[in-house]
């Protein structure tokens, strides 16, 4: 038995080492320097306690980036979830070319976010296709392009994010749909249930765990939105998000590490609470059924 123990330990070692060095240690380190005034250039590091946190809560730039992040999360998740569910229902049937559609819808999800951001920057520009489309439909488009107007910039990026993500979650919903036993539907058919009754009484409840998974994963991901902002607007026109703020203040110009680590933890706590709430809310609902 002892021999097994050694083997097991050796086997697990590479993971343990990389995990501790590159994940656990930074996590703790980040927490600690959140209480200091550490800046890359300064000679001295001073303990400032909760000073950073206090300042952050009255820092307009940080707060506005935080509020943008919330707008992003609450604005994309409902749409992404619903649309991906609809798409999953759409490709669930057995018909010719179904696989093609599945792939087509899924393609954007495996493409680099950077690439997508670049393509959409082009589409959103003044005189680009989206502007043309909007004008054809009778809307007035911002003069310099969607990304240059603080009223449309953030929302344009959100729309792009929804476009990109639905394929991925569609597949997950699909898996969920496929795991619902056919017998349930057959039984419902026998008792003469309508389509919508079947959907609301069988499909939706049984999709709860999948939906929960999607919601939690999607929100964790959405709270950290960064790449799109960096590529498309560099935070201008009111598009700065929490992670972009962390990058801009912590990794450029003044390199204010301590201050920004505190900001990172504020975001971390928010994400944690948010996920927890989702988990509890939806879990509880489930038990009612």
């Amino acid at each position: 038995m002892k021999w097994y123990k050694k083997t097991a330990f050796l086997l697990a070692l590479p993971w343990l080492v990389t995990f501790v060095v590159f994940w656990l240690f930074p996590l703790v380190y980040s927490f600690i320097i959140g209480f200091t005034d550490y800046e890359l250039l300064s000679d001295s590091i001073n303990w400032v306690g909760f000073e950073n946190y206090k300042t952050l809560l009255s820092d307009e730039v940080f707060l506005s980036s935080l509020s943008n992040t919330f707008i992003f999360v609450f604005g994309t998740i409902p749409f992404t979830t619903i649309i991906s569910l609809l798409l999953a229902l759409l490709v669930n049937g057995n018909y010719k070319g179904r696989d093609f559609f599945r792939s087509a819808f899924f393609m954007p999800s495996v493409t680099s976010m950077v690439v997508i951001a670049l393509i959409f920057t082009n589409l959103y520009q003044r005189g680009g296709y989206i502007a043309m489309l909007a004008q054809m439909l009778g809307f007035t488009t911002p003069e310099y392009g969607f990304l240059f107007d603080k009223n449309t910039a953030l929302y344009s990026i959100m729309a792009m994010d929804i476009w990109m993500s639905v394929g991925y979650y569609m597949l997950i919903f699909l898996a969920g749909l496929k795991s619902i036993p056919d017998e349930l539907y057959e039984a419902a058919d026998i008792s003469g249930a309508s389509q919508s009754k079947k959907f609301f009484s069988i499909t939706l409840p049984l999709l709860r765990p999948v939906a929960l998974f999607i919601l939690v994963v999607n929100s964790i991901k959405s709270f950290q939105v960064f790449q799109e902002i960096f590529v498309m607007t560099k935070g201008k026109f009111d598009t700065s998000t929490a992670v972009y703020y962390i990058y801009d203040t912590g990794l450029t110009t003044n390199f204010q590490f301590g201050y920004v680590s505190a900001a990172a933890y504020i975001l971390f706590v928010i994400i944690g609470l948010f996920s927890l709430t989702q988990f509890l809310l939806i879990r509880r609902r489930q038990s009612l059924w």
Partner: protein
Amino acid sequence: MKKIFIYFTAIFLLMISSSIAKTSLEWWQFWTDPTIKPVINKMITEFETINPDIEINVTDLTWSNGHEKIVIAFSSGTAPDIVELGSDWIAQFASKNKIADITKLSKNEFGDYRGWNMATYNDKIYAKPWFLGTRVIFYNKTLLKKAGFDDSFIPYKWDDLKNGAREITALGKKYYGWGSNTAEKHRLYKKFMPFFWSNKAQLFTDDNKFCVLSSIKAIEAIKLYAWLHDSCGYVDNQRGIEDAFLDGKIGFIISGDWLLKRIELEKRRINFGTTLIPGPTLPGRSFLGGEFLAISENSKNKEAAKKFIDFITSAENQIEFCKANRTATPSSKLASQDEYFTSNPNLLIFNKQIHLAVNPPVDPDWVKIEAIIEEAVEEIIFNTDLIAEPLLDAQRKIEKIKGIE
């Protein structure tokens, strides 16, 4: 006996030669393109020949990541002996004592060079000016003529600029009177601040007690800037504006001496002129910046470093560099009096503008203040019809940064 004597002589000679130890200096600089790098190399070789006990190791930096590299080097204690810094970076390093105070070392040169104030922090000098940079108005003579102005017309006051821009825009759909910058970090403020300063507006009151970004004078300045943008503006980033100007589509743009280089190297056939930034009634104030050479506080060879810096910034070397790079404004007063500069009308304008230019305050907080100003300007010209409110907002934010309540 003879053998021992020979051995001793050999050892003695060896010891002597090794005691003429070479001082090795490390220099980080940004001039890498093929038109100018040879000049840099030549200067280094020349210096090493004159000073055989000093060796220069040069590292090239790019503008995209050079700043970060320098910050990292200073913070980890591995900074080079000599480093080229942009004027807006000096405060950051000076305030943390990463670069050396060279006030005493430069005592005899104060009168010979211009731009010292941009390297002065807390009344101490931290770097030596190498090249200055300013912005002037480039204008298209052909378009002006087309719009009905005669050859001698040069806008020196605001109304001139307005009229000129308006008439050129009226020429037709593909003509614009004014090149207006989009939201570009570290660039937009250099285009707006000239209007601000030309109108004698100030950021802070003289006693530094209050921020007065929303003063009447500032509002007038931004009004003009916004008008030019709305009524005559070709809106794009700096490169796009320059391209359009060189293609003959824009009447007036603000640009720097690199545009002269472009026109010459690309053999552009454009009938253009340069002139001073206009003010309300007389020529106004432009933006002033520059490239500086600083010595790292940790350097063990500060005097040798200063020797090298002095060599690089000597009048002759500056003239040679400017000729190769088409730089308009050397820091050496003597150099600027050379015929190369005085016989060229455009270079003359640049050097005149230096005397009528304002530099941003040497303050580590400036980068934040700059971002706030840029945001306010973007807000005003891109988003709203409001002028006073965004300025008041920015004013409040700046006061917060400076700890003024």
